[in-house]
C-alpha cells in the first residue's frame, strides 16, 4: 500500500486492513489498463456500440434568446444507455472487472441510476450482481428497483443509519470485506478511497474530451463557462477534465442548495460553509458533519446529490480556486427543469437541473459573444414518480390512486 492518491490535502485510502491487498490489486489493474492503449480503444468501442457515444451537443435556441446574453449549449449525457453519465463509469469498471478475472459485482445506489447502470453492465458481462440501496430510497424509487431486479440483480434494502446513499456505501464495503476474492465493488462516483476518485474521473473524462472538441468544431472557440451538478462529483469531473488546462474557461460546480443554509437543509459541501474537513468512507474531504465528526442528515429534491461528502479532487480544486461552487435551491431546480421541458423539449434529471438553474441565473449577465456549456448528466423521464411529486401534478396523483384501486380490486377478486 503506497501513500498515494492525494489531491493537495484531500483523498487518501483510509481502509480496513482486510481490504489493503484488494486495493493494491485494483490499483495495479487500473494502472495497467491506463498504460495499455488497447484498453481505452476497447472502452470507446463498447461505448459507441452499446451506449450512445459520442453524445451530441445541443444548442438551446429558445432559451438562449429568451434569457438573452450567452449562447447556451448542452452536453447530452442523457442519451447514454440507461439515461445518465453513470454508464461511462460502469462500463469501464466492467471491463476492468473482467480483466481482474472477477465474477461478481456489487454497488451502492442512491436514486437508483448507478444501480440500474451496474445491473445493466452485469447482465451484459454475465456477472452476478448485488445492489445496496437505502431502505428509504428503495421505497422512493420502485421503478429503478424493478429494472434492477428484471436484469437479475439482487437489491438489498439497507435499514441502517439514515437509510440513504452513505449507508448503502457502508453496506457495500461490508459485503466487500467478506467477498473480495471474486467480487469487485463498482463505486458510483469520484469519491471513496484511492484509486476510485481518479479511476472514476478517468472513465468520465470521455465527456470532457468529446465536449471540448465538439465546442471548438461548432463555434471555433471554447465556452466561457462550463456548468455541472455535483453529487459525489463524477459528471463534474468528467466534463471539467476536458477544460482543466484552458484557464479562460470558468468551471462551475452546482451543489444541492435544498431548502437553504443550515444543518440538515441541503447537501452543499463546498458552496456553503456548513461542511468541515474529515475522514469517512475511506477518504478525506469536506463532509457535512458535526463537531465530533458524526455525519449529519442532508436534504435535496434530487436523491443523486443528497450525499455528505464530495470528490477529494473537487475539494482540492475548490481550495485552489480552479472550480467555483454554487448551490441551487430545490425550488429553482424544479423551475429550471420545467422551463427546459416546456421550451426546449429536453427533460433534464433533477440532479442535472441544478446545473441548468445556475446557468440560467448567470447567462443573462453575459455577452452574446460568449458560449456556455451545461452538462446534462441524465434524463428525468424515467424518474417520473419523483418528478411528478416535485412538480406536484394533480392528474398524476389521480392516475396513481386509480391504478392502486384497480390493483386492490384485482387482488380482492383473486
Amino acid at each position: 500500500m503506497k501513500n498515494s492518491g492525494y489531491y493537495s490535502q484531500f483523498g487518501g485510502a483510509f481502509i480496513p486492513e482486510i481490504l489493503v491487498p484488494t486495493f493494491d490489486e485494483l490499483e495495479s489493474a487500473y494502472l495497467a489498463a491506463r498504460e495499455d492503449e488497447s484498453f481505452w480503444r476497447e472502452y470507446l468501442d463498447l461505448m459507441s456500440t452499446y451506449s450512445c457515444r459520442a453524445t451530441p451537443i445541443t444548442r438551446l435556441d429558445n432559451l438562449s434568446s429568451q434569457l438573452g446574453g450567452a449562447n447556451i449549449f448542452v452536453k447530452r449525457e442523457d442519451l447514454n444507455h440507461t439515461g445518465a453519465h453513470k454508464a461511462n463509469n460502469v462500463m469501464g469498471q466492467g471491463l476492468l472487472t473482467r480483466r481482474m478475472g472477477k465474477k461478481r459485482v456489487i454497488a451502492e445506489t442512491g436514486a437508483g441510476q448507478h444501480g440500474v447502470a451496474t445491473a445493466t453492465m452485469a447482465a451484459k458481462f454475465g456477472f452476478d450482481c448485488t445492489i445496496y440501496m437505502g431502505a428509504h430510497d428503495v421505497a422512493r424509487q420502485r421503478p429503478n428497483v424493478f429494472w434492477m431486479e428484471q436484469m437479475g440483480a439482487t437489491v438489498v434494502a439497507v435499514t441502517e443509519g439514515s437509510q440513504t446513499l452513505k449507508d448503502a456505501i457502508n453496506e457495500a464495503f461490508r459485503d466487500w470485506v467478506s467477498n473480495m476474492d471474486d467480487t469487485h465493488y463498482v463505486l458510483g462516483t469520484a469519491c471513496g478511497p484511492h484509486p476510485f476518485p481518479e479511476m472514476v474521473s478517468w472513465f468520465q473524462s470521455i465527456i470532457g474530451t468529446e465536449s471540448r472538441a465538439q465546442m471548438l468544431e461548432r463555434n471555433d472557440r471554447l465556452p466561457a463557462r462550463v456548468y455541472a451538478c455535483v453529487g459525489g462529483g463524477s459528471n463534474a469531473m468528467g466534463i471539467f477534465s476536458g477544460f482543466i488546462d484552458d484557464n479562460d474557461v470558468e468551471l462551475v460546480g452546482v451543489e444541492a442548495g435544498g431548502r437553504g443554509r443550515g444543518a440538515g437543509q441541503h447537501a452543499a459541501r463546498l458552496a456553503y460553509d456548513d461542511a468541515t474537513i474529515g475522514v469517512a468512507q475511506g477518504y478525506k474531504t469536506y463532509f457535512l458533519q458535526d463537531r465530533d465528526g458524526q455525519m449529519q442528515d442532508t436534504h435535496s429534491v434530487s436523491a443523486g446529490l443528497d450525499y455528505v461528502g464530495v470528490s477529494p479532487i473537487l475539494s482540492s480544486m475548490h481550495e485552489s480556486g480552479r472550480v467555483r461552487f454554487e448551490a441551487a435551491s430545490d425550488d429553482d431546480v424544479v423551475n429550471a427543469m420545467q422551463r427546459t421541458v416546456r421550451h426546449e423539449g429536453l427533460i433534464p434529471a433533477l440532479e442535472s437541473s441544478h446545473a441548468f438553474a445556475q446557468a440560467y441565473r448567470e447567462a443573462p449577465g453575459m455577452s452574446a459573444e460568449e458560449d456556455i456549456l451545461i452538462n446534462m448528466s441524465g434524463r428525468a423521464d424515467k424518474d417520473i414518480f419523483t418528478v411528478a411529486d416535485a412538480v406536484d401534478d394533480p392528474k398524476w396523483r389521480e392516475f396513481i390512486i386509480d391504478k392502486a384501486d384497480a390493483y386492490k380490486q384485482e387482488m380482492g377478486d383473486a
Partner: protein
Amino acid sequence: MREQTTLEQSIRQARDKKDILLMTHIVLGYPSFDDSLRMVEDMVNAGVDLMELQIPFSEPMADGPVILRANAEALKAGATVEQSFKMAERMTKEFDIPFLFMTYYNILFCHGVSRFVDDCSRIGIQGCIVPDLPPAEGQEYLDAMHAAKLSPIHIFTPNTPADRMRHLSDNSSGFIYTVARKGVTGKDTAFSDELSDYLALCNSNTDLPLAVGFGVKSREDIDFLRGKVDIAVVGSESIRVMEQDGVGAVKGFIETLVA
C-alpha cells in the same frame, strides 16, 4: 529491540499467571453511559483482563450488524466524544485493568490527533485500535502515540501477506489484533486447523502478544485458542447477550467463559 509499553508489560505479567487472557468490547453510551459503567464493573468482577471501549461513530465501516446498531443507538441517545472521555476516565480510575479505545479515524481527526492522544494519556487509556487508519495514513497518530508511550494496535487478517504483517508489527506496540476471518464483526467463525495455521503464521511475524477476535463467543472457542494466542476477544456476543437478557446477564455470560 522495541521498548515495551505499559500495556505490553501488563499483558506479559498477566500471562505469567494465566494461559489465556480475555478482552471484551463495549460501545460507550449504549444503551446508556450508566449501563456501560455497569457492564464494565460486571465484566471486571467476572474476571475480564482488558477492555476495548468503542467511541461511537456514525459510519462504522468495519463493524457488523450488532456493533453497528449499538453505535447508531448510542448516537441517537446523544452520546458525544466528550462524554465518552469522561466515562472512560471514570472507568480507568475505578478498575485496575488496562483499557483501550477503539474508534474510527474521523473521531481522532476532528478532535485533533495530538489532542486526542494527550487526552488518552491524561485519562489513563493505554492504547488505541483505529481500524480505518493504515500506518501509511497515520504518521501523525503513530508519532504522537509513541511519544506518549501509548500502544497503537494494528490488525492482521487472513489476507495480510507476511511482509505486511511485519510492517504492521513494526508500527504497533502493546499487542497485535488478528481477525479470525474475513468479513465484519459479529458473524460466525470456523475454529479449525486452518485457523491454527493462520495464527501460527501471525505469531511468526510479530514478537508482540497476539489477540484474536471476530466470532469468539464460547468457552469452547476460548479453549481452542489456548496455547495459540495470548488474548481472546469477545466483542459482539456480550452486546448480544445484553440485548437479549438485559445488562444483568452479562456477568453470568462472562463467568461461563473464564470458569
